[in-house]
C-alpha cells in the first residue's frame, strides 16, 4: 500500500473486449472461492453423495431387476438413470444458491460485493458458475460410484469434457432460477419452502427416471419446456451413447442460462436493498 492517493484506473467495462476479460476474471474469482470452501470443508461433499448413492444403489438396482421401465437395447436401467441422478444432484446443489445469497444479504456480504467494481450480471454469473464448479466436484463422486456399480460410461475425454460443460450449464441455470426466486421471496425460510416445492416437480417432469414417451400427454408437454430434460438428454448422449440432438440440448440450456442470469441480475437490487 502506498501513502499517495491511488490514480483512478480506467473503467474496463466500457470496452467489450476488456469487459469480457473482466467478466471472465470475476467468474474465475468466484469459482476460486467455491473451490477454497470445498477444500476447507468436505463434509457437504460426502453428505450430498448419500442421496444419489441411494437412488443408484436401491432404486436403480431394484428397477433394473424387475425390468419395469423399458430401456434401449444394451443399456441397463441403472445406466439409463445415472445421467438423470447426476443432473438431479446438480439441481439440488444449485437450488441451494438462492438460500445462500439471502444468507449473504443478511450477513452484509452481498452489499460489500456490490460495492466492488463488479456489475450485477458479473456477480450473478460468478455465483452461477461457482454452483457449476461445486456440481462438477459432486458429479465426479457420482460418476465414480456409478462406475463401481458397473455402469459403462464413456472413456472419451472429449465427451467427458462436454458432459462437464452441460453439467455446469444446468447448475448455472438452476442456481440463477433460485437466485431469481430469492429476489422475489426475499426471506430464507420462504425460499426454502419454494425450493422444496419446485425441485421434485422439476425432477419428476424430466426424463431422469423414465423416457418421456411413457408419460401422459400433459406431463410430456411440461417435460418439453423443462430445461432439466434437455440437460439429462445431453448427458445421456455423451455418457452412455444414447441418441439425442446434442446441439438442440446445448442451445436450450445455454439460452435458458443467459435468460436466468439476466433475470437474477435484474432482481438482485431488490434483494440487496431491502
Amino acid at each position, binding site marked *: 500500500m502506498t501513502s499517495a492517493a491511488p490514480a*483512478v484506473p480506467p473503467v*474496463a467495462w466500457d470496452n467489450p473486449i476488456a469487459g469480457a476479460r473482466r467478466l471472465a476474471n470475476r467468474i474465475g474469482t468466484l469459482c476460486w*472461492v467455491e473451490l477454497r470452501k470445498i477444500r476447507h470443508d468436505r463434509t457437504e461433499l460426502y453428505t450430498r453423495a448419500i442421496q444419489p448413492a441411494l437412488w443408484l444403489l436401491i432404486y436403480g438396482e431394484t428397477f433394473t431387476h424387475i425390468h419395469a421401465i423399458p430401456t434401449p437395447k444394451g443399456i441397463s436401467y441403472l445406466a439409463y438413470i445415472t445421467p438423470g441422478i447426476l443432473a438431479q444432484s446438480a439441481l439440488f446443489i444449485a437450488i441451494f444458491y438462492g438460500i445462500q445469497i439471502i444468507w449473504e444479504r443478511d450477513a*452484509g456480504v452481498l452489499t*460489500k460485493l456490490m*460495492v466492488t*467494481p463488479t456489475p450485477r450480471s458479473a456477480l450473478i454469473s460468478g455465483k452461477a458458475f461457482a454452483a457449476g464448479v461445486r456440481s462438477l466436484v459432486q458429479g465426479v463422486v457420482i460418476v465414480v460410484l456409478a462406475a463401481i456399480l458397473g455402469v459403462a460410461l464413456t472413456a472419451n475425454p472429449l465427451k467427458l469434457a462436454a458432459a462437464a460443460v452441460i453439467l455446469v450449464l444446468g447448475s448455472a441455470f438452476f442456481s440463477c432460477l433460485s437466485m431469481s426466486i430469492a429476489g422475489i421471496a426475499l426471506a430464507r425460510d420462504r425460499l426454502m419452502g419454494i425450493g422444496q416445492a419446485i425441485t421434485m416437480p422439476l425432477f419428476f417432469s424430466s426424463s431422469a427416471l423414465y423416457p418421456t414417451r411413457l408419460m401422459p400427454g400433459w406431463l410430456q408437454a411440461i417435460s418439453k419446456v423443462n430445461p432439466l430434460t434437455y440437460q439429462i438428454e445431453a448427458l445421456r448422449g455423451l455418457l452412455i451413447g444414447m441418441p439425442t440432438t446434442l446441439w438442440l440440448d446445448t442451445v436450450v440450456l445455454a439460452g435458458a442460462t443467459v435468460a436466468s442470469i439476466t433475470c437474477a441480475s435484474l432482481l438482485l437490487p431488490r434483494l440487496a436493498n431491502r
Partner: protein
Amino acid sequence: MTAGAAEKAPGEITTQAVRCADLTYRFGTQTAVDHVDLSIAPGELFGLLGPNGAGKTTTIRMLTTLLKPATGTVSVSGIDAAAHPMQVRRLIGYVPQMLSADANLTGLENVELFARLFDVPRRTRKDRVATALAAMGLTEAGTRLAGTYSGGMIRRLELAQALVNAPRLLVLDEPTVGLDPIARGDVWDYIQRLRAEHQMTVLMTTHYMDEADAYCDRVSLMHRGTIRTTGRPADLRAGLGDGATLDDVFRHYTGDTLDNPPEEGGIRDVRRARRTARRLG
C-alpha cells in the same frame, strides 16, 4: 467525464472527497433522505450521527452506488456516483454495519477475494494482501478460518478487505456496533493509525456520541432525513455552554433523544439488528 478531469474540476480549488448536493431519497411516500447538503474535505474523519432511521444508511447507500438518488447528486472526489458507479466504487473501501467476513474462508482468502474483485494485478496481489493483513495485526491469524475470529478481529479483517484496494475514501457504517468496549478501542486505534499513515478520508456513521466526540474531526447531526447541524464536536458543545455533551447538542437541535428514536424506519433496523444478533449469537 473522465476520471482525470475529475481531479481538477473547473471552478473548484480543491475537489471535495465527498459532496452531497440537495440529495433526496424516498421509500414510497416516506422521505428517508431529505435535501441533504454535505461536504467532506480530503483527509477528514467525518461522522454522520443520528438515531436508527435517521437516514444515515440510506445516504451511505447512495454514496456507495447501491441506490440512485431521487433528486440531487452525490459525488466522490468529484465523480458523480449515480453517473459513474464503477469509477466511484474503485475509490471506496466499504465496511458494512454487520460483521460480514466469510466464515468459510481464511482471513487471507477473505482479503484476497477483494484484491481480485478490485483487479489488483496478480504480481502485486500477494504483497498487497499481506500488507493489508499486517496493517490490521492479522498476519498470524490469516491462515485460520474467519469463523474462528472474535468480533473485533472480524472487524479488523473487514478493514483489511477494504484497504487492499488502497481506497481514497473509507466508508464505515457503525464500525463498532456489537463490539465489546476493549474491541471498540482496539478498532479505533487501527482506524486512527490508518488515517495517519495513508491520509485517507473516512466517513463513518454512528449513534455512539462519545466515539464521535473523541475521534471525528467534524460531525453532522442527522434526524428524520435532514441534517440539523454540522461542525467540529468541540465547537458544537461550546455553542451550548459549559459542560454540554454531544448528546445535549443532539437534543438541542432535534428536540429528541437517541434513547427515543422516531417511529418511522425503525422496523427495518430492528429486523436487521435481530438478524445480526441471531447470526452472532
